[in-house]
């Protein structure tokens, strides 16, 4: 179990990591997700020991390791550039950590062979890194790390250099591997799709802070901040003032004098007059020619139609000039979705998600 307690990191005057606290559970696949410069890699490097926190504690199974060197922690890293030693062959690369531990030749051979089988590169022992493809290097890098049976494996955007198809394949394999070995994985990426695919939980980071920690479902469907809503997937964001609040239902007045209703049992703290944001995912919205009852409904004109393969993406211009995006499965190509057509956009009350910030 890893715990980061009030971690701060500044380089000179620039604060890169700002008061981060998080608990990572044993055997969990946790992803640090965020745009470039959000501090996710720095955080990972602090866990690995390559940077020392300016303040705060890093606890590994209850012991503070924040001042310990990387070689004193039972944590291993898979680098973005793989960092395979060019002067050693694959076998010796993998065996490196074991040799440092002074294990016997036989034990080393056994472990290395085992892990090579695990990454499906059994015959590659005497090859040199320069003779390997990108995907192979990546797997050897993983092998070199996990052969040491670390408690935690840190992965710094390991799939960034691979092409799309290989990346998708590796995502699957990594997840599979993690489940099999039961090691805690802390994964860093800026690719939200990757994060959503692989993680048990995601910590979304922005400008050195953690915006939200949650399961992929929570992050996606119940974003807690504007940033999270915007960063993950696409979203339609509305701003308004609470008009009425009764039981679980909120009525929100938009500046276009239209109303949106929200049904959500967790919003007792909000009261009349509060200013809030509401976000609705594009795939939760539907288009129709005619008015719709017992749902949220807004009127608008079709501005643009975009074909994205499996989805029909339509941009609708609402009466207050605001644009929304609607994603519908491309199975029905309805006649009225031509540009300039008048349409009604509707969605369930429950699908409105309230965000305070």
């Amino acid at each position, binding site marked *: 179990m890893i715990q980061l307690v009030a971690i701060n990191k500044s380089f000179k005057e620039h604060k890169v990591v700002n008061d981060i606290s998080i608990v990572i559970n044993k055997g969990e696949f946790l992803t640090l997700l965020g745009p470039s410069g959000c501090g996710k890699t720095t955080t990972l490097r602090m866990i*690995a*020991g*390559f940077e020392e926190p300016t303040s705060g504690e890093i606890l590994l199974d209850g012991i503070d390791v924040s001042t310990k*060197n*990387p*070689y004193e922690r039972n*944590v*291993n*890293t898979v*680098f973005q*550039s793989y*960092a*395979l*030693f*060019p*002067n050693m062959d694959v076998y010796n690369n993998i065996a*490196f*950590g074991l040799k*440092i*531990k002074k294990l016997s030749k036989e034990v080393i051979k056994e472990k290395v062979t085992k892990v090579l089988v695990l990454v499906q590169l059994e015959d590659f022992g005497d090859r040199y890194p*320069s003779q390997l493809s990108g995907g192979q290097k990546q797997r050897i890098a993983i092998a*070199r*790390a996990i052969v*040491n049976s670390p408690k935690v494996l840190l992965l710094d955007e390991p799939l960034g250099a691979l092409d799309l198809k290989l990346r998708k394949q590796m995502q699957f394999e990594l997840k599979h591997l993690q489940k099999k070995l039961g090691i805690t994985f802390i994964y860093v990426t800026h690719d939200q799709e990757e994060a959503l695919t692989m993680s048990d939980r995601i910590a979304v980071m922005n400008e050195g802070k953690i915006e939200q920690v949650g399961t992929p479902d929570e992050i996606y469907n119940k974003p807690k901040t504007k940033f999270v809503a915007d960063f993950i997937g696409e979203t339609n964001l509305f701003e308004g003032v609470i008009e009425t609040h009764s039981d679980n239902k909120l009525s929100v007045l938009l500046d276009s004098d239209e109303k949106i209703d929200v049904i959500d049992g967790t919003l007792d703290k909000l009261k009349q007059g509060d200013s809030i944001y509401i976000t609705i995912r594009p795939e939760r919205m539907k288009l129709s020619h005619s008015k719709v009852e017992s749902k949220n409904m807004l009127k608008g004109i079709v501005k643009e139609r975009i074909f994205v393969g499996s989805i029909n993406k339509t941009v609708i211009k609402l009466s207050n000039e605001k644009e929304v995006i609607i994603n519908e499965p491309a199975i029905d190509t309805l006649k009225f979705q031509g540009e300039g057509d008048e349409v009604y956009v509707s969605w369930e009350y429950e699908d409105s998600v309230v965000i305070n910030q």
Partner: protein
Amino acid sequence: MKKTKKSKNKKQTASIVTTISPVLLWMIILVAIPLVIVFIMGFLTRGIYGQVEYIFTFQNYADLLKPMYVQIFVYSLWISFITTLICLVLAYPFAYFIANVKAKYKVLLFMLIIIPFWTNSLVRTYAWMIILGTNGIINSYLLQFGVIKEPLKLLYTNGAVILGLVYTLFPFMVLPLYASIEGLDKSYVEAASDLGASPLQAFLRVTLPLTMSGVAAGSVLVFIPSLGLFFIPDLLGGSKTMLISNLIQNQFLTARNWPFGSAVSILLIIITIIFIILYFNKSKNKGLEVM
């Protein structure tokens, strides 16, 4: 189509030739021709008064096999080897330090190495004589502070010669080493550390092997010139040791045996070429970068 391709190639070659022709001319007149002259001279005979007589002979090269000369060669190679080794041991930490220090200090440290280079090396060797002499700086200080009773014999020793050689050739070792260390991807060292290696282990198993190209380049750049620096054994060694360089100097100036001197020179050039070939082969095999 064929015609245009041919004329294009011709134009390209003509262009290349005209671009390098000044350098080519310089190389031919000042390097190639003198080398040929020296090579031919090695097969000629010395006259009574030390002139060159155009009588073909292998005797000069045969003489090289005499034990006395073999000894000179072996000793010279030994001195050069020691010089190279000491340079390496001293230069590596220094180069490592420069590579890892903040950018603003790097320039200062480089200046420390390069600025003495702007002074004539002969003048700097004389400076060492002043420092090491019986009444020189070192002895004066040690005597004054009572550390020693009698002045130390520092000058006109083999140690002084090696000191002079190491001092003069030091920058040639530092610069390639620095380039090699600086070019080393830091993530290799991080990976080693991550896998449990202490700083020393990381250095021995990762950094050192990966900077071997710098070590090799620096070694060649020190070893080969050290074979030819005759004025350092002359000045700092009291002219007592006869190294290859001194032997050549002696043959041309004192013994006036130009044919034999030429033979020795050619042998020195051959030894140099052998080492350079070894260096290039080694670099190729390991797939490391050639400086």
